[in-house]
């Protein structure tokens, strides 16, 4: 069963652009990416769109659909009212390249700034022992498919270009949390760095990152807030600071 669907697709590049009206056929059970491909094959052969697995596993087809950051392959056309047109734009927090494709290099730069995992030198390959309960928290964050929807929706950079210098963004806060909670990671000052270098304090926990995450990672509750609490432990809690001094645990570095 097919019907006609009205779309408004943003076309253009860094210099200029606007929403273009298109009418296209849509079948039962199709997602927005299917429809975009049909537009591409029948009406706009040079419509630029990034995609890859078409199964919600690679995080390539990030765009904004009716103003919300989403994966086009995970957005069913049937989830919108039949008679309404659907508006599709590129991500609005990153520089646009062409049509629905944006320059997401910001995220790769930030990835480079996060100190890597440090394995205990005395443990040879195969000797690591970790309990399942100890790896589960970090495993949740490793589900991340790097679609960067959280980075796109976060108002800290979406609404303030100048903050991009000093703010790593939700995707990298879960990376920091993943490493800080990793049962074997040896690097000690992740909490301090999170606050001082990666801009954890910029986050005002308004939770949009969690709302848009296609992997349903509970970014705010399970990563950002626990990291904020861990930062308090080492930076803003005199009692724990004193305790750390006395017991020679991790303190303010």
């Amino acid at each position: 069963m097919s019907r006609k669907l009205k779309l408004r697709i943003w076309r253009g590049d860094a210099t200029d652009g606007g929403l273009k009206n298109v009418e296209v056929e849509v079948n039962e059970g199709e997602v927005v990416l299917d429809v975009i491909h049909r537009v591409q094959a029948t009406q706009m052969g040079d419509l630029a769109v990034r995609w890859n697995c078409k199964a919600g596993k690679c995080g390539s087809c990030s765009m904004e659909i009716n103003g919300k950051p989403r994966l086009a392959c995970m957005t069913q056309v049937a989830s919108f009212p039949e008679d309404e047109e659907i508006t599709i734009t590129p991500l609005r927090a990153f520089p646009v390249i062409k049509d629905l494709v944006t320059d997401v290099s910001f995220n790769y730069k930030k990835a480079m700034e996060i100190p890597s995992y440090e394995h205990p030198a005395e443990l040879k390959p195969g000797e690591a022992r970790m309990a399942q309960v100890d790896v589960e928290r970090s495993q949740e964050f490793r589900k991340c498919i790097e679609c960067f929807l959280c980075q796109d929706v976060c108002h800290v950079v979406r609404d303030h270009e100048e903050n991009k210098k000093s703010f790593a963004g939700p995707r990298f806060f879960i990376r920091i949390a993943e490493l800080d909670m990793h049962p074997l990671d040896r690097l000690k000052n992740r909490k301090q760095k999170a606050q001082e270098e990666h801009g954890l304090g910029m986050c005002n926990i308004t939770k949009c990152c969690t709302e848009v995450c296609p992997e349903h990672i509970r970014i705010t509750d399970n990563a950002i807030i626990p990291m904020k609490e861990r930062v308090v432990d080492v930076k803003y809690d005199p009692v724990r600071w004193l305790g750390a001094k006395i017991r020679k645990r991790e303190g303010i570095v």
Partner: protein
Amino acid sequence: MKTLEKHRYDVVVIGAGGAGLRAAVEAREAGLRVAIVCKSLFGKAHTVMAEGGAAASMGNVNDKDNWQVHFRDTMRGGKFLNNYRMAELHAKESPDRIWELEVWGALFDRTKEGKISQRNFGGHEYPRLAHVGDRTGLELIRTMQQRIVALQQIDAKENGDAESHIKVFAELTITEILKEGNKIAGAYGYWRENGNEVLFEAPAVIIATGGVGKTFKITSNSWEGTGDGHALALKSGANLIDMEFLQFHPTGMVWPPSVRGILVTESVRGEGGILTNSLGERFMFKYIPSVFKEMYADNEEEADRWYLDQDNNRRPPELLPRDEVARAINSEVKAGRGTQHGGVFLDVSKRLPAEVIKKRLPSMWHQFFELAGVDITKEAMEVGPTCHYVMGGVEVEPDTAAAVGVPGLFAAGEVAGGMHGSNRLGGNSLSDLLVFGRRAGMGAAAYVKNNSGSSVSDSAIAAAAARIEAPFTKTGGENAYSLHAELQEVTHNLVGIIRTGKEVEEAIEKIATIRARSANVAVVGDRKFNPGFHLAFDLDNMLLVAESTAKSALLREESRGGHTRDDFPGMNSKWRQVNHVSNFDGNKVNVKAQPLVTLSKELFELFDVHELEKYMTQEEIVKGGSN
């Protein structure tokens, strides 16, 4: 005229999936300067789709497991057509490759003792697959991506430039591998973003481009699986072997359309999912081949008991190697017992409680529920064969992954041939890309030590540039999208899961016609992120791959693993002794038979002679392997 962007590296790695990244890490650690080139963004490669796990005989769950058992399983799975040396290296080195990932920060699921947990999988005698829920591929790729970042951070600290030794060129297509004399001299391509051309000068090139699925209509592969590496290798003078062997995953979604082609992982069956036809029969019991009779249950009671007691019961036939399952499903559908969309039912909802399904198969559940509103805890899935993996690929030296006949060219991962023989076991691809990715990196490092490489001649550059410009010079030519669709139709119907000589011949003719027309492909628009332009090059690659597959399939007059001939239904020991080798003469692909390397005596003795009798001729058995 703009100046051409030029780079000089020790090695160019084409492809940033598991094999490419592993090769890059190894090459970098050997001191090489490495360029990683990929068509997508960094970290999006098809490896992320691998769900089940990575096979390695660590023996964490069952300590009877060891490399010899893994080797035997791999050879059986490949129906003894495997390059035995590759299978041997793979079985021996896989555990180290998995453990090494842990050192780089990977977090696999754990056993009670805190070791890496391992799960059962089709064709593996013991629980062997290291896994992370059902997103193991993502874990692998992310770990290696982060390993590369870690190495870049070291470079930044030591010499002030993070990209001094490894640079990732994302969203760049390589259109040509360049040679000077008979040796590799570099690679040529263009940025997808703006169409600007790039020259890489390097003495070594590692191809790690993955598969060819997009040649077929229904496939689990993404747009990237267009056989680029296969075609690049052919065009640069290397051979492809075993191209008739393609794995059609038995359980791809056939309905609804938004998830068509997407794999339903074998672990759904491993966790208790059963296959039924439209009559409600659990049909797999009818399809147990004689070689597997002793290992698989022939009745439902025993099969169900196996989930609780694996030592005293035979396994359910749903866990047969995947080609057997694919063939069974195909037979059921052809006999008119399929669903209305041409598949069969796979049901786990009646076997396990909803919470258990969600816990054990989280991304399976989440994916189908979100993509298509199908809840696998409540209803059966409609599944059928989908093109998943190509066993065939570049002919390589097992120890170095060096492409035979082209000094400086290496290949690893799905694009390399030989390792899996006629059929790959689930879980062996992730370990394959780690083992041979590393070996390709080592091989390239050793090669570069003695070969500094030469610069690319201006005439070669001009020729490569002219080929990129070609589609823009045509007006009113062929449309790449429709030619691609025609090709997919031909391959799927005529060289798909079940083949006959007549159909394959027809396919060869049709592919040749499409290929002739493709010379006239014209592109609308400019070079800036233009998918029509990109497809023009992918199409050329897919046509070569299809030609090679069809011609190999025509020669092999038997059915084995991922190659099923309706006109030659049985396996024939005579055909086990040869590989089919494709090369390209500039106009067409030529395929010839080449004797298979004989199993070494030491490895020969790992098998029971009675088992070998099912695969080998009497003379081979008497000879008892080579030395």
